[in-house]
């Protein structure tokens, strides 16, 4: 269908229903934090997160706010601000299902989906306890080997929605992501994609050969909302992470009560 043009954030977020399997990018690739706060404000429930391949504040906040039923990830961490407090608390309490993965397995699962293939083969993993806690992964004997060469198979991961932030989009629905190709794979693999962008590009991103090289075509993009500084407090492009805010988050979110105070304050902004 023709791209209907950029919409308001809350309207775009209708794409994400309760229980949706949502793919989210790592901190360096454009985390849609404004959209995350709006989702929590709306009261979404039962989300299943796929972190591509890891997450930080975004997953921690979504978990702390009680919106997450399950998370597949290679890691959740606040990086230099320490462990992700609401994530670790939820895992210890057993209130969120964890599907522990490793970075390349998540990429491989999304690439299988991108290709319409049922699974991807992946080296490594043999002898890792990840195989014990991921019964949905399989090990077969490499049919191309001489025998006795175990290789892991990762099933396709098909998110309902990919959600991320990008530098710009045009009026046709094309989104410029630059060299952040995991965003392209996420969008290809997902049934639909919701992007917040810093700004609109005045023209056709696909018409310029240089920009086209870093452009996700509108074909994959369901909704776009213009949200300047949409990753705050997480870094984006040349904008750095809000260190003061992150340190404050780490401190407040160390306890459930502190997190709730943080959340109330942030949602009221």
């Amino acid at each position, binding site marked *: 269908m023709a791209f209907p043009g950029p919409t308001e954030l809350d309207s775009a977020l209708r794409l994400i229903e309760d229980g949706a399997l949502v793919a989210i990018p*790592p901190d*360096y*690739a454009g985390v849609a934090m404004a959209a995350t706060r709006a989702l929590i404000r709306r009261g979404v429930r039962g989300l299943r997160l796929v972190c*591509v*391949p*890891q997450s930080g504040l975004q997953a921690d906040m979504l978990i702390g706010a009680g919106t997450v039923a399950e998370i597949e*990830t*290679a*890691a*959740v*961490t606040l*990086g*230099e601000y320490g*462990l*992700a407090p609401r*994530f*670790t608390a939820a*895992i*210890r309490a*057993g209130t969120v299902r964890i599907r*522990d*993965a*490793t*970075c*390349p*397995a998540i*990429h491989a699962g999304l*690439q299988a989906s991108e290709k319409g293939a049922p699974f991807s083969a*992946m*080296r*490594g*993993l*043999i*002898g*890792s*306890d*990840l195989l014990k*806690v991921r019964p949905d992964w399989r090990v077969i004997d490499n049919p191309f080997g001489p025998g*006795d*060469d*175990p*290789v892991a198979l990762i099933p396709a991961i098909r998110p309902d929605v990919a959600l991320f932030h990008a530098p710009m989009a045009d009026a046709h629905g094309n989104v410029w992501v630059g*060299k*952040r*190709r*995991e*965003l*392209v*794979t996420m969008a290809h693999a997902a049934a639909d994609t919701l992007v917040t962008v810093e700004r609109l590009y005045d023209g056709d991103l696909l018409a310029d050969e240089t920009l086209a090289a870093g452009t996700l075509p509108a074909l994959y993009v369901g909704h776009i909302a213009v949200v300047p500084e949409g990753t705050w407090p997480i870094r984006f492009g040349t904008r750095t992470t809000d260190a003061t805010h992150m340190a404050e988050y780490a401190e407040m979110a160390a306890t459930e009560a502190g997190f709730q105070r943080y959340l109330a304050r942030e949602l009221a902004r």
Partner: protein
Amino acid sequence: MSVRPEELLIGTVAELIGRVRHVAVGALSPIPAAAALLGARRHDGMRVSILNSRRHSFFTDGGRELFDCAGQGRIDAFFLSGGQIDGAGNVNLVAIGDYDRPKARFSGSFGSAYLYYVVPKVILFRLEHTRRTLVDRVDFISAPGTSPPGTYRPGGPHALVTELCVFQFDKPSGRFALASLHPGVSLDEVRDRTGFAFATPDVVPTTALPTDADLALMRGPVARDLAETYPAFAAEVLGWRAEETVR
């Protein structure tokens, strides 16, 4: 010149990396990053990829490229850490205690369950040297130190560097063996604070101090290169001041 503990570690890790074509460094690793940059200063043509660096990152194919590149055999050395590490080189980045109801939960396995298998020289770097971190047997194997014959495993552990000493990984036995004690550290102290058994040479060397030439590199061009990704570390540990930049 007086040598800071971090500088000793940087020099030690640079020696462990040796002369390779391409060393990659993950996030939150200023000492390994400095060691890799030192190596590049010493060995012409050595390539250093520092994740999340803008100047020292060559990747343009998204988050998967590091792993693909390693799988292609194009990364010779990499660093891993662990919430727990045991004497057989097993690494635990997941949890302590029962997996389903853990006593402690770490961030997760990151790329360890792949990179540990395919990068020839994986250097484990974990400063905290205690029986809590260096254990007899990890509670969860994010990635194993060794694999049964037949398993595709061109990579694996090369050494383990802590605040006290260096262990080399001995492939035949599949165990860490003590390689050197940092200056001022006793064998008894290491035994006391290590949860796993390890072989010890008859005479245990002391970890070599960096040469004056290496120190000059560390405090000069390496600190400058490092400052882009780790400005605080470059300034506080290596004494780097941006205004001195001349190049």
